């Protein structure tokens, strides 16, 4: 349910952006959910809707897409998808990463060379892809 705190962040960032750009209060917000963070899309969408309801005047529609995670080893250059390392995570570890995706460095290594020095190239967590006036 900490998805609520992230939904609040999205609503705040999107409306701030719209205000700053002089948009009318009808906007469409595209959100990317990075795979590593494992955000519960249902809870998140519900949170967005509830938070938006409480805003007076604003009409916001959301488009939510998922973004696959891509990891790349800084030592050997190997790139891999989350699915290859995820299965080795315990439920608890996955939950820790759910809260702080970067903590993945405590629980994952490069499948090729065992380095802990890898880059989260894509799909770390939440990001706003676009905010448009509609």
């Amino acid at each position, binding site marked *: 349910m900490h998805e609520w705190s992230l939904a609040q962040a999205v609503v*705040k960032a999107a409306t701030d952006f719209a205000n700053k750009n002089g948009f009318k209060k009808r906007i469409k917000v595209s959100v990317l959910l990075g795979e590593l963070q494992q955000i519960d899309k249902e809870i998140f969408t519900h949170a967005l809707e509830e938070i938006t309801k409480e805003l007076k005047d604003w009409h916001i529609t959301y488009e939510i897409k998922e973004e696959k995670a891509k990891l790349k080893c800084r030592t050997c250059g190997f790139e891999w998808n989350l699915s290859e390392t995820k299965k080795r995570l315990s439920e608890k570890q996955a939950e820790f990463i759910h809260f702080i995706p970067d*903590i993945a460095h405590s629980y994952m290594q490069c499948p090729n060379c065992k380095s802990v020095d890898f880059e989260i190239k894509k799909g770390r*967590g939440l990001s706003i892809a676009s905010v448009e006036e509609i």
Partner: protein
Amino acid sequence: MLGIDARFSVIEDRLKGVKRIIAVSACKGGVGKSVISCSLALKLAERGYKVGLLDLDFFSPSDHMILGIKPAFPQEEKGLLPPTIYGIKFMSIIYFIEDKPAPLRGIDVSNAIIELLAITIWKELDFLIIDMPPGIGDATLEIIRAIKRLEFLLVSTQSKLAWESVERMIKMLKQQSIPVIGIIENMKQKDSDFIKRNAKDLGIRYLGAIKFDPGLEDSLSSVEKISKTEFAKWLEEIIPKLLQQEKFK
């Protein structure tokens, strides 16, 4: 991609119930930032203040050991509620890494800090004490960026090794007009006004000295024992100066 980091925009909201945010900081490690952060938080809580403590030293988190707690995971609500320990709301990376190392590049350190600030629900606090890692790298730069009303509390030993590096930090903070409450001289072992004099020369308030207390180490992990140490007594004498907020503004 727009490149709006949604998390930044909510941090101010998350901290709006917090009156003062103090980063306990130094360029050098091992000068006593963590024992001072914890004891300060405890002493302020004893005086009836609402206090939060955030351990941001991801490579050697210490506060959970100093306080002697078994990490109980924060409650998940509409965010994470830091557990209350001895009257202090306590947040640390330790909940998430347990006994594992956290080999993080700067970008990961920044991300983890922003994530923690975005999801932690502190509610109302008089003080949020942030126990900083040594240096002026990502953690320091990120927290300066994220929290506009941050105040720094600096710590140095009387060694010139520690002082030279704190001097660098002071210069950096001054360049950017970031408020510094003052400096605590810790683990003082011999009579000398070296730190006091140098702090004054730089226009930094000298808050006082805490002597080296041979009894401190064995008191760690027990809040009762810590509060009875000489260390705690000396720190106690410094607290009134910390509370005179107007003095350094």
